[in-house]
């Protein structure tokens, strides 16, 4: 199924980048200064768990040369969903915002 494989490669490619935003692959200049108490990775499954889940879901194995690519981490995207909005901001749903820009 060539089209299926093409889609899979695209998804895996995006996943590589998206998971990266939560996993400390980036330059870390001074990151520790404000992040000592930050629970950024607390909920993210570790690499071993990811690998196990991949195998269980029938994702490509090592013989396909794709095993190193992580799956899309939906947890990292949760803030996009309504329930991912912090509770204090959810209270504003359906109400006018607290900032007023002059339209004149």
């Amino acid at each position, binding site marked *: 199924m060539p089209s299926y494989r093409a889609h899979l490669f695209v998804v895996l490619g995006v996943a590589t980048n998206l998971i990266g935003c939560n996993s400390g692959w980036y330059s870390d200049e001074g990151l520790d200064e404000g992040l000592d*108490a930050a629970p950024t990775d607390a909920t993210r499954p570790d690499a071993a768990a990811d690998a196990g889940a991949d195998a269980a879901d029938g994702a490509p194995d090592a013989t396909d040369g794709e095993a190193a690519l992580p799956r899309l981490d939906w947890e990292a995207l949760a803030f996009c969903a309504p329930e991912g909005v*912090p509770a204090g*901001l959810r209270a504003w749903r359906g109400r006018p915002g607290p*900032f007023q820009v002059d339209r004149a």
Partner: protein
Amino acid sequence: MNDVQRTWFRQARTEYTAASLVAEMTHWLIRLGVGPDLLVRATRVVSDEVRHATICRELYVHVGGDPGPVALNPRALAHADDPDAPTHLRAITAAGELACEESVALTVFRMRLENARDPMAREVCEVILRDEATHRVFAWDTLDALTALVGQEATRAWVRPRIAWWLRTYLGAKLRPVEPTFPPEDLAFGLIDRRAHWAAMRQTVEAQVLPRFQSRGLLEAEATPAMLIAELEALGGVPPGRSPPATA
């Protein structure tokens, strides 16, 4: 409006303005086709700034501020520098300015948190401090990504004459001989004495911001704050690349 109210009112406006400016930059980054990782992080920064604006306004109301809407000037909500430049150069300006601002903000909020004793003020400072660390990394990573896109020489040619302007708030500040000090009950809401505040911002520029431009080859190694202050004074309040207004 007292000093505590004024501090958090201004901070609420600053955070909302940051949300708008990063959102505009995010649009430019999308148009430039930078990696999806950077785009997702950019949208996260926008979300964070909206949240910061809201909690700062809540703190302003908590200390007796007007609970009505916070008025904003629409002109402050869009990037003003280099309006006629191509998108990639405007994005570099936006990233460079953001890198400067977020680097200094991290220092300022660390100081706010050290002073804050009021529980709500502490919570606000903790949230913002934690987020500012990721924002600073994002800003410098964005500058790096744009440098890779545009090329080192072209980026340096654009960035170098603008660094002093981007740091004008910190380099150009002139303190009065006697600055007012805040009583302990005001400091407990995260205020910082003005002298310490300006000194810390200037020190952050010298110890953290300039070295990062230098390590990227965007600023010569021998550059000093004094040199940039002289450049700033030579600009006469007019951004680089823009002619001074004609006089009649």
